[in-house]
């Protein structure tokens, strides 16, 4: 009793002090929109977490230097509240909740990847805070009829069907496909979508192996795949898995005519790290700097986004960078359309968006997942990604290894 009385007294005291101080605060401090971003800034997923952060930071900088966000007759600046959840999904969920209850964020960016996004979406739904996910593509994330979750990667089928068609059209004698998938939400789901897509093209899946998270050696799986004599090898995982798999394929003499890997080759550091072994690897990406869109978002066009990226970070953005930046731009478009920062109104405005951006057309399905993009297929040729599909932005022809 005594402690609760005491804490009430303390709380009342703090509240009184707050009321006294409030009128003295500069107007700008009141007119800030806070967006929470729980990120894996350390731990195994930190390379991905840092990419997301770069995208958000570029959006904040661009939005604030262009005069902030206007809604309801006020101008707001944007501020991001970051926490590091150290690649530990339960901590991502806790930090999302703390950001809503303690930091009073108006909106949220989702943590990295399908698994953590799905876990955190329960929190954003509970509190009615719109959460935009830059890196969750698996349909399983969006199948809970949640109203406050939106994602800017298209479903896994959209990165599987085009390449299946492209390969069979170019080389009908490719018949036998071997699949090696990381036993993890996204890598497994995307590999299963790929399996379905190649079966639809009448190809035969000769092996489908899964490997555990943190596997240090793929020799057994590769030996088994080699014994199945595949024409086409498909491996899913994250960048370190794929580097190791590519090297061990070479060590153990597994040399398919075509090698597809996701998600790693879309990052510029992949080709740099793998060196000559990166040649002819095909992959898919939800966005590519070669696309050309004019948009109503804060960046204005793909060229302008690329230029802003180059200026701030040097080099080219990859799809994680771009998807993270566009997620900020989507919150901004939602606020402007709702003419309010009320989370429920902004949520409705985002759900109703049908707008061009530097990232492509933004339109969400009822599930909250974007359904208006055509993710490009590309191949690493001479250390550089060359877009093979869609035809509108095609840069070269599909090559096969001898």
């Amino acid at each position, binding site marked *: 009793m005594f402690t609760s009385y005491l804490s009430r007294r303390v709380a009342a005291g703090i509240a009184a002090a707050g009321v006294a101080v409030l009128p003295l605060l500069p107007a700008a401090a009141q007119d800030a929109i806070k967006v929470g971003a729980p990120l894996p800034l350390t731990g195994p997923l930190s*390379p991905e977490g840092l990419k997301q952060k770069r995208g958000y930071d570029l959006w904040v900088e661009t939005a604030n230097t262009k005069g902030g966000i206007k809604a309801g007759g006020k101008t707001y600046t944007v501020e991001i509240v970051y926490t590091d959840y150290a690649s530990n999904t339960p901590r991502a969920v806790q930090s999302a909740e703390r950001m809503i209850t303690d930091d009073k964020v108006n909106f949220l960016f989702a943590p990295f990847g399908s698994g953590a996004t799905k876990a955190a979406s329960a929190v954003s739904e509970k509190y009615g805070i719109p959460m935009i996910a830059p890196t969750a593509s698996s349909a399983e994330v969006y199948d809970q009829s949640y109203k406050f979750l939106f994602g800017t990667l298209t479903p896994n089928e959209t990165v599987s069907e085009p390449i299946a068609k492209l390969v069979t059209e170019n080389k009908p004698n490719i018949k036998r496909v071997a699949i090696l998938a990381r036993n993890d939400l996204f890598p497994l789901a995307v590999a299963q979508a790929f399996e379905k897509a190649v079966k639809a093209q009448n190809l035969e899946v000769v092996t489908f192996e899964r490997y*555990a998270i*943190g596997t*240090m*050696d793929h020799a*057994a799986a590769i030996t088994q795949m080699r014994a199945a004599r595949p024409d086409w090898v498909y491996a899913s995982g994250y960048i370190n898995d794929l580097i190791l798999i590519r090297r061990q394929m070479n*060590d*153990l003499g597994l040399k398919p005519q075509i090698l597809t890997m996701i998600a790693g080759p879309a990052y510029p550091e992949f080709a740099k790290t793998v060196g*000559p072994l990166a040649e002819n690897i095909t992959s898919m990406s939800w966005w590519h700097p070669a696309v050309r869109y004019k948009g109503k978002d804060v960046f204005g066009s793909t060229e302008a986004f690329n230029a802003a990226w180059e200026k701030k970070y040097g080099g080219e953005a990859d799809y994680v960078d771009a998807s993270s930046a566009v997620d900020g731009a989507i919150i901004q478009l939602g606020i402007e359309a709702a003419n309010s920062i009320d989370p429920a109104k902004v949520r409705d405005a985002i759900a109703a968006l049908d707008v061009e951006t530097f990232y492509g057309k933004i339109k969400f399905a009822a599930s909250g997942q974007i359904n208006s993009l055509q993710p490009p297929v590309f191949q690493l040729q001479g250390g550089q990604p060359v877009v093979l599909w869609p035809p509108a932005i095609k840069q070269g022809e599909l090559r096969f290894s001898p």
Partner: protein
Amino acid sequence: MIYLQIAANGLVLGGLYACIAVGFSLVWGVLNVINILHGTFIVLGSYIAYFAYVHAGIHPFASIVIAGGVLYALGHAIHAGIINRVIAAPVLITLTLTFGLDLILNNAMLVAFTADYRSINLARPLGTLEIGPVFLPGDRVAAMALALLLTILLWRLLRDSRIGRAIVAVRMDREAAALMGVDVKRINAITFGIGALMAGAAGALLSIIFPISPLNSATFLGKAFVVCVLGGLGSVPGAIIGGIVLGIVESFGSYWFGPEHAVTISFAILLVLLFARPRGLVGRRGYE
């Protein structure tokens, strides 16, 4: 025929595991310190080899000397300056201490080198040896052979040198060794330094095989743990046998049950062994 390839894969992997574990085993066995820093020491050795290769063109195999030397100095200093202060405390205290030091060193590496994966692409790789149906990756086999050679050198050092005998004496009975005139503090620091040296050398060897990032340290530490418990603590032959057993079990386990179960199988075997033979396969009280 595929079994020959799987056995070969397991042997090569096992040799590397032995090399990862031997320094960890030595420190645990002699000092009774569970050195959580070990994985980070290995990664630091890999970075030394990486930068030596990229900036000076030094082959990672030659970098064993540099990485080993730097890590010895670091290990010796960390022990003499920090760990020695609590060396007589219960094992949990030193474990917590090395855990804290690991957080500091690992995060310092994340800041200095970033988490991006790097890898050494040798200008002249050894290629693949094909012996009938068996493919042997040349660089891996060479790394494994060097790893085993280093491990055997360590074993000879422990058996045949004055320092080695002193280390073994401390392991067997700290008080008695002190009574015989062994400077236990000095031997402790040297042992910790040798453990770090072996980690650094292993890191240099592994730099041509695994992508390099501070994030790998936990994986290396986990393997070292299993190998030590399998083979027996503080024993050099134990580390070799434990490593090779783990490599072969993982290799066949992946083949029979699928790669997603490889880790489950190795830990299941670990549990059985802890139950049936808690000293490890070749562990015994005392020392060789």
